[in-house]
C-alpha cells in the first residue's frame, strides 16, 4: 500500500488539486456523455412514436406506386 492515511491519499503529495481536477473532469464528462446518450435515445423514441402516430401506420407506403406508363 502506497499511502499512510486517507488524507495523504487525497493530498497526493501536494499535487492533489491537479490530479483530482483531472480525474474529476474526466468523470464529469463521462457521466455527461452517458446521460446525453440515454436522453437522446429516449427523445428519439418519443419523437418517432409521435411522428408515426401523425403520419399513420403505413409510413413505408407513402409514395405513389407507379405501375405502368400510358
Amino acid at each position, binding site marked *: 500500500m502506497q499511502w499512510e492515511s486517507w488524507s495523504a491519499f487525497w493530498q497526493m503529495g501536494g499535487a492533489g488539486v491537479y490530479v483530482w481536477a483531472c480525474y474529476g473532469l474526466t468523470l464529469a464528462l463521462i457521466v455527461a456523455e452517458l446521460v446525453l446518450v440515454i436522453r437522446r435515445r429516449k427523445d428519439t423514441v418519443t419523437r418517432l412514436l409521435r411522428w408515426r402516430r401523425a403520419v399513420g401506420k403505413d409510413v413505408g407506403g407513402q409514395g*405513389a406506386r407507379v405501375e*405502368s406508363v400510358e
Partner: protein
Amino acid sequence: MLAVSELACLKGDRLLFRGLSFSLEPGELLRVAGPNGVGKTSLLRLLAGLTQPEAGEVRWHGTPLARAREDFHRGLLYLGHAAALNDLLTPLENLRFACAAAGDEAEETACVRALERIGLAAQLDLPARVLSQGQRRRVGLARLFLSAARPLWILDEPFTALDVNAVADLAATLSAHCEAGGAVMLTTHQEAPFARAPRVLDLGGRAC
C-alpha cells in the same frame, strides 16, 4: 435507349415514388405529368444522373448508369429549372461556355446562329442580367439547336415563360428531334402543339 426499373426516390423525409418502371425508345416523346411536389423534377434529375436513386436502377443502352456515365452524358442534354446563365456574361458567352463545358465544339458562328434562330438576335451582346425571364429561358433552349447529336433530351419545364409563338416553335423542334430518331422527356404544365401526342407518365396517379 433508357430503361428504368423499380425506381424509388426519397426526398428528405418523404418517399416520392417507388416501383417506377418504364423505358424510353428512340423517336419517343415522353411527358411526365402530375401535380406539384409529386417528384417530377426529382425524377428528371435522377435520370440525368445528378442524384442517386433510393432503390432500383437506370440503364443506358443496357448498361447501368454508374458504369456508363461518360457515354451517357455524351448522349444527354439536360436543361433544368435554372437556366445556367451567369448574369455578368452575355447570352453568346453563356451559350459558348455551356457548349464547351458539356464537351461540345462551340463555334462562335454556330452559337450566333442558334441564338438568332431562337429570337435573341438583338440581345447577343447584352449582359444576361437585363434579359427578361422568357429571354433567359431561350438562351438555355438555344442549346437544343447545337445538340442534335445528343439523342436524349431531358427538359424540365421548357415551356415556362415562353410566348405562344415560341411554344409552337419549341414543340416543332422537339417533334423534329424525335422524327430524327432522338428521344425527349419533359415536364410541362401547359399544352403544347406537338406533331404527335406525347406518351404520358403520370406520377400523380396514386399520390397522397
